[in-house]
């Protein structure tokens, strides 16, 4: 379990040093003075670009000393950016919106991952479609979280349901799949790696995945306006490194899984009723189900505007805000030119 430190303040992970040589090959090492950055992350598959860039030594390649700081929730993470303790973070777009609406000086500078939330149901629950959720127990994440926003604004709406039609239970994703397995709920809305764990360990079906139906920019790279004003260069390098990481995730999932496996599964194998699954395979599957993307397209910006509308309608925002004011896509424009 040595990989735990790789996320820690105690220095680069064991995989870090050796990996820089065999990086994905995109871009050459950057000359000039090294930069130190503190980046916040969440230990979910959605944040794989941030973690992989660290574990595979990509930050170093771009002349960055990155300290990854783990958070339990996006809410805590973004407070640390707002308070100036972190220079950047990879977290949910909705977090940026709620805080920016309050007046925080935040900028979304790049993409990371496309929303992946799947509805996992117990095989014996009889639920085959979203409509079948009516009257059933569904475990989801906190009200106001990204998962909750899209659940209500997209999943339920498209199925013609409302929050009141379903018995909602709001818990952490780990508790959600545990409750699912224990029969306390009939269905759970989760993201990776919880879906894979649920599949491996339980008697479950996935009946719906929002990324297939309504892809939206979920995890984004967020920094503060002040950071951009004082050291844009460091942020650009960060985005370069994560871009390489995304390339590796998309093209070499096996290798990426080997780097990331220790961050998600401690045992070599995960046991379930249907036999054992190798941990690396489980993580690779989780990576493959995800769509990682560093660009924020015009299509994405429209989705962002839709999300803001949903949030306003759910009372999470007091008023509509203009998405463009929290976007700063100058790195992306330059990167696109290079490509």
């Amino acid at each position, binding site marked *: 379990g040595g990989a735990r430190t790789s996320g820690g303040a105690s220095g680069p992970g064991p995989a870090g040093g050796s990996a820089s040589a065999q990086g994905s090959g995109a871009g050459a090492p950057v000359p000039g003075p090294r930069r130190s950055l503190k980046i916040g992350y969440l230990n979910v598959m959605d944040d794989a670009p941030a973690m992989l860039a660290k574990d595979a030594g990509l930050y170093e390649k771009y002349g960055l000393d990155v300290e990854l700081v783990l958070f339990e*929730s996006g*809410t805590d993470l*973004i*407070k640390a950016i*707002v*308070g100036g303790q972190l220079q950047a973070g990879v977290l949910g777009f909705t*977090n940026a919106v*709620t*805080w920016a*609406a*309050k*007046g*925080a000086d935040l900028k979304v500078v790049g993409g990371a991952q496309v929303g992946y939330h799947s509805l996992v149901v117990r095989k014996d629950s009889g639920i085959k479609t979203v409509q079948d959720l009516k009257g059933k*127990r569904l*475990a989801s994440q*906190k*009200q*106001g*979280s990204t998962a909750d926003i899209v659940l209500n604004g997209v999943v339920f709406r498209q199925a013609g349901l409302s929050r009141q039609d379903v018995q*909602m*239970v*709001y*818990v*952490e994703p*780990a*508790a959600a799949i*545990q*409750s699912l397995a*224990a029969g*306390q*709920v009939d269905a759970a809305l989760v993201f990776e790696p919880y879906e894979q764990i649920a599949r491996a360990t339980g008697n479950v079906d996935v009946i719906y995945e929002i990324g297939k139906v309504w892809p939206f920019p979920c995890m984004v790279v967020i920094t503060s306006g002040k950071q951009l004003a004082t050291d844009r260069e460091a942020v650009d390098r960060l985005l370069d490194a994560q871009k390489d990481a995304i390339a590796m995730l998309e093209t070499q999932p096996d290798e990426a899984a080997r780097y990331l496996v220790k961050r998600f599964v401690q045992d070599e194998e995960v046991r379930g009723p249907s036999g054992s699954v190798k941990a690396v395979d489980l993580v690779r599957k989780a990576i493959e189900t995800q769509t990682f993307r560093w660009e924020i397209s015009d299509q994405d910006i429209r989705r962002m505007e839709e999300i803001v509308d949903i949030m306003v309608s759910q009372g*999470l*925002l007091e008023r509509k805000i203009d998405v463009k004011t929290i976007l700063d896509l100058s790195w992306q424009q330059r990167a696109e030119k290079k490509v």
Partner: protein
Amino acid sequence: MTRRPWRDKLAYVAAIATLLLIWQIAALFLPSFLLPSIPQTAARAVRLLGDPTFLGGIRDSFLRLGIGYPLACLLGAALGLAGGLFRPLALYLRGLISILQSVPPITWVPFLLILLGFGNAPVIIVITIASFFPMALAVLNGTEGVSRTHVEVARVMGASRWQLLTKVYAPETLPAVITGAQVAFGNAWRSLIAGEMVAGVSSGLGWSISYAGEVADMAGVLVGIVVVGAAAAAIDSLVLEQLKRRLLHWRNGAGGDAA
């Protein structure tokens, strides 16, 4: 010693004033979306306190507290006293407590959810667990200080074990019981808040605070915290302190007026 009720109140007011002052000063230095000022929070409070959902949440929280906390007090006092009489039990309890009290009560939430399902039960049990320890520990330690002569008098008078418990140990450990109850009360509130945040209930003060935090509504968070603090302080000073005063009034007879 004569009671000086206005002075008692003054000290309380001073304590509240200190907290408000610190808050207001901190608010001057932090952006208002991180730490709203008192007036901003007050405005938010007025809105929230007119909101039936919020009020319903307060009621739900009180309900959970109102079951979990007294239960823990009863259990803690009973087992602590029994331990005082029966030494192996005391040692056994000490062992259990010293192992279990270090584990954050919300650690049990997943297990409780699986065992009991969602609803009030897991939150109530978390409260009970959290407030049981200080109570039991205070009473256990309290029984060790019971005067040997007081016990002997009762034994000479023919007291049964049960009578020893209720007529000597119980009154003599009362100060410890009250300390335990006051400390347990703090634990009960904290675990109520923490429990509501993770146990999948959709109402209550803890839930409100965590929801407000999720949507970057720091004023809402602060209103929640203030309501919690005010409610806890009110119950503590109106109920627990008064109870203490009544139960221990024999300490406060006239005399020693030059003290």
